[in-house]
């Protein structure tokens, strides 16, 4: 039986799991001094559509947090609420607070949060489509001194040799996966303190997925705090110290990566493992699953 990476338990990738104090209670959040803290965050779109209904999330310094959950749960919205991009989509943090390094940031404009060191890689492969790959990357380093920017560029090419091959290409014409590498590469150029990536593995070939995650592991070694939204739950929980499961705008489950990996529901619905630990074939699923509604 051929197993795709989606089914592979984190084993090979666990070396990054940090030693931050694990908390088994689902309300505790990860330990360590908080770098980012969302408390009771509510988000409304267009002034009427309540999408996040009181979210509490803590990301410690150098920590890594994974957000899981079904489509439409509000994962991307959570990231947008932190980075301030929400404001450009008629969204509003209508209650609660977002704090970064102790200061409130929910009222800041998106570009200001970046200057404080938060970088949000949005979903949808948002490349600067008329610019070349290299121009995209250089633009990504626009806040750094030019020597540092040059260094970062070298480093990025080292991380993504493929991008070096493509440096002169107009980014709008790249393939989906190539664009995905580019947006992550561009984010690295900014050398943020906290990076939030929406579905890093989206559209990447299996080898590239491994690449990306090993890059993320490396980054974790370098003082970078991470929030990732990821459907590749195994890889995500291998990388993260702590995870939150969102559904319908609420956090329905949270805990350390380890505790989540052993949670029965997670095993069944996110890792696709039966009680025996064996994965079922996609071909054999005869009925649509009754979607598990978390009523936390």
């Amino acid at each position, binding site marked *: 039986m051929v197993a795709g990476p989606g089914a592979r338990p984190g084993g090979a990738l666990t070396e990054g799991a940090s030693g931050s104090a694990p908390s088994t209670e689902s309300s505790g959040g990860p330990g360590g001094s908080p770098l980012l803290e969302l408390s009771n965050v509510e988000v409304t779109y267009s002034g009427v559509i309540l999408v996040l209904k009181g979210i509490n999330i803590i990301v410690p310094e150098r920590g890594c947090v994974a957000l899981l959950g079904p489509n439409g749960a509000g994962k991307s919205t959570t990231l947008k609420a932190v980075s301030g*991009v929400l*404001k450009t989509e008629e969204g509003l943090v209508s209650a609660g607070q977002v704090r970064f390094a102790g200061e409130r940031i929910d009222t800041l404009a998106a*570009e200001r949060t970046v*200057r404080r060191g938060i970088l*949000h890689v949005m979903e949808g492969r948002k490349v600067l489509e*008329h610019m070349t790959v290299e121009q995209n990357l250089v633009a*990504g380093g626009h806040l750094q001194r030019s020597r540092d920017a040059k260094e970062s560029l070298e480093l990025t090419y080292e991380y993504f040799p493929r991008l070096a091959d493509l440096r002169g290409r107009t980014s709008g*014409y790249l393939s989906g996966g190539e664009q995905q590498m580019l947006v992550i590469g561009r984010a690295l150029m900014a050398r943020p303190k906290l990076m939030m990536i929406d579905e890093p593995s989206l559209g990447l070939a299996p080898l590239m997925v491994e690449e990306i995650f090993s890059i993320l592991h490396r980054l974790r070694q370098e003082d970078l705090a991470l929030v990732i939204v990821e459907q590749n739950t195994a890889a995500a929980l291998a990388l993260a110290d702590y995870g939150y499961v969102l559904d319908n705008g609420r956090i329905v489950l949270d805990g350390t990566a380890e505790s989540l990996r052993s949670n029965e529901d997670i095993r069944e619905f996110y890792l696709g493992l039966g009680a025996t630990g064996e994965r079922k074939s996609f071909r054999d699923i005869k009925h649509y699953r009754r979607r598990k509604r978390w009523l936390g």
Partner: protein
Amino acid sequence: MIQLIEYALNGALLGLLYALIAMGFVVIYRASKVFNFAQGELVVVGAFLVWFFTLDLGLPLYVGFALALIGAAIFGLIIEPLLFRRLVGQSTFSMVMVTIGLLILLRGLVLVIFGPSVRPFPDLISTAPITFGDITLNRGLAYGGIFTILLAIGVSLYFSRTRPGLRMTVVAEDHQIAQSMGISVRRSIAYAWGMGMVLSTLGAVFYLNGKSVTFLVAEIGFAALPVALLAGLESVGGLIPAGIIVGVAQGLAAGYIDPVVGGSFSAVFPYLVMVIILFLRPSGLFGWRIVERV
């Protein structure tokens, strides 16, 4: 033959003037993705500032001119907080439409502040013509032409070589991406309008040198439009060839076609040239091509 050369040369100079006015558009578009319908009005404001600081206040010409440029820059900078601040993040389309409001508003403001009279415009450049043998050229336009070429090179370099230029380019690509990269869309828009106003004022100087100014001068905005499109809305450098093409075409049409058809075909001709070239190159000579990818 001499006549042909004269038509072509005069046309080219006029085209370069259009290019300078169009540079106001392009800079604003290139740095904020806002297509500015009020470009002609900006030229009027610039022109009246020059008139005000020189002839009206009676300051020495170049002092007055310098003050006018500063005034223009300040005026450009305050447009962003007044009009665009709340719109950042909205579709650029609504920003573009706001410029229509701005157009109407500025027209009223100019009328109220400077009045409807036709005012003399100072001779910042000698009005004596330049003559080469049988050919005479308008000195203001000739100097303007040279200035426009140099300026276009400078502004292009600014966009391609400097950090602020790079940031503005990113803003022109996509406001949301720019913000998510830590680039202030607002600041970019503000600077763009500041630059646009200064360019418009310079345009006004070469346009009106030794002539007169009224709020109706705004018409030049729409006359300069084909040049901006032909160049490609993102291309500053392209304005030079585009200006020359449009100007020469118009000059020759006025010289040889208008007398035959007995109407002002030369007024339509630049648009026809523009449409034809756009058919061949849908994003102008040097504009960003639309990326079509699925």
